[in-house]
């Protein structure tokens, strides 16, 4: 398990709040390239946060960022970063993961690789640059912890 030197907690009370956090968390994640694992159960707001980050970085509008659960990889190109949004929910084995070519993505100097359900794969956990853990609070509340460094 990779250890981090820095961490920061966030709490939001709505989808709009999670989208707005894209700015603060986006700033933490820069500069590229970075490999980031987003963890949290179904409905925790992982894709919503990616929408916020992509909009903040000018790579896509919030509406353009959709769930990659089936399609596995979505790519959004902004002026300074190239966001790869991955979802490994349907993947079971490292062998399947290998065919997605995450190495090639990370090798690009402007890549911000955001991986949902990435914590299940040791090959990613051992080399990630940051981790965002998200959980349900009361009602629409969501708690997030970003760890990096």
């Amino acid at each position, binding site marked *: 398990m990779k250890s981090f030197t820095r961490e920061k907690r966030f709490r939001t009370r709505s989808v709009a709040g999670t989208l707005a956090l894209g700015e603060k968390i986006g700033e933490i994640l820069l500069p590229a390239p970075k490999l980031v694992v987003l963890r949290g159960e*179904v409905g925790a707001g992982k894709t919503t946060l990616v929408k916020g980050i992509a909009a903040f970085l000018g790579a896509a509008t919030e*509406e353009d960022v959709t*769930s990659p659960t*089936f399609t*596995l990889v979505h790519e959004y190109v902004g002026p300074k970063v190239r966001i790869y949004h991955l979802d490994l929910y*349907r993947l079971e084995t490292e062998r399947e993961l290998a065919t997605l*070519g995450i190495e090639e993505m990370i090798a690009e100097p402007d890549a911000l690789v955001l991986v949902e359900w990435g914590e299940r794969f040791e090959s990613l956990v051992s080399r990630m640059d940051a981790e965002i853990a998200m959980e349900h609070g009361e009602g629409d509340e969501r708690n997030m912890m970003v760890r990096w460094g």
Partner: protein
Amino acid sequence: MRDDHDSSERKALGLKREGLILGIESSCDETAAAVVRGGSEALSNVVASQMNLHANYGGVVPELASREHLRNVVPVVRAAVEQAGIRLEDVDAVAVTEGPGLAGALLVGLTYAKALSFGLGKPLIGVNHLEGHIHAVLMEARQRAEAPMELPLLALVVSGGHTHLYLAEQKSEGVWSYRNVGRTVDDAAGEAYDKVAKLLGLGYPGGPWIDTLARHGNPLAVPFRFAKIKPRPHREGVSLPNKKAPAKLEEGEESFDFSFSGIKTAVLRYIETHHMRESIDARRRALAEHPDWRPGSDEAAALCDAETLDLIASFQHAVVGNLLRQAFGAAERYGARGIVVSGGVAANSELRRRFQSEADKRGLPVAFPSLALSTDNAAMIAAAAWPKFVSGDFAPETLAATPQLRLGGS
């Protein structure tokens, strides 16, 4: 001029007698190949996961890997050609999915199609996967020799990876054009089915489980609501990311976009507040012990108490209702003369029943694909390639896989 017209028509008729197109599809999980004559007659339609080489896995999803496509593409194409009763040299063009899809997966079909096209000296045609889904329905209508539906058509493409509404028209020389008038802003409808099924301890894919169990529950027991989605400005030429500039919208403009992320979270909430975790775990264990209990079996239904069945029925009722309202709303708004529904979710029985009944009420024709052509296949790719073949819209050698390929402007 007149002579030119006649000769092009004669040419088109000549092509129609032959017009064998080999379609290849590898955009996501399925490797598929098919031979379609004249855009209307599927001589073969082969999907790797349904072939014998996968029989051992009994309907389990094929492995998600471009390596699998690589392993499958040659035997699948060979089977498609054999089953069509033709020789590879007989095909008049090779059509292939260029996107949207997974880059590595698309590349396998594309590279193979290019090599075939080059080797045979036959043109290559690039097809958008989403356009293929629409043409699956049109092809089958032609195959049944039905009168063609009047245009424009409103097409709902709804699957695990997509939920899109298109206004489809045929321009001069038979070329189709599409306008994207609605789409999901988060999860696809089929994805919501799969995730809710998993939350409830049911099997994968979730659609058949939920569809069959929903018949045993009360669809009005749990009220699910869909948030109104704010209409989007015209997508073309929107500068990013000026969040402060308000979207310019005409008064009363409605959105035909979808959002299925909220209902997934609402189901999770319901499970928690109604303390259903324990019974869900028991169900998951029971199904793991009895892989032979298929969707629709009495054993599967017996695993669900009334509360669970009501939740399932209510979920399906809400999702189908939302798809129906948006599709018929868009059809009315854009003056569509008919509706086609395609993609994996088009196999859902409640969706078919309610769409048919609403269409009858409105006097609009509605068409669905057969179950085999609902999910990903290559016959739809070969069918969608036909109008391009007739108009000579061939792909250059440089045709590349486009993972985020869109269909039509908005």
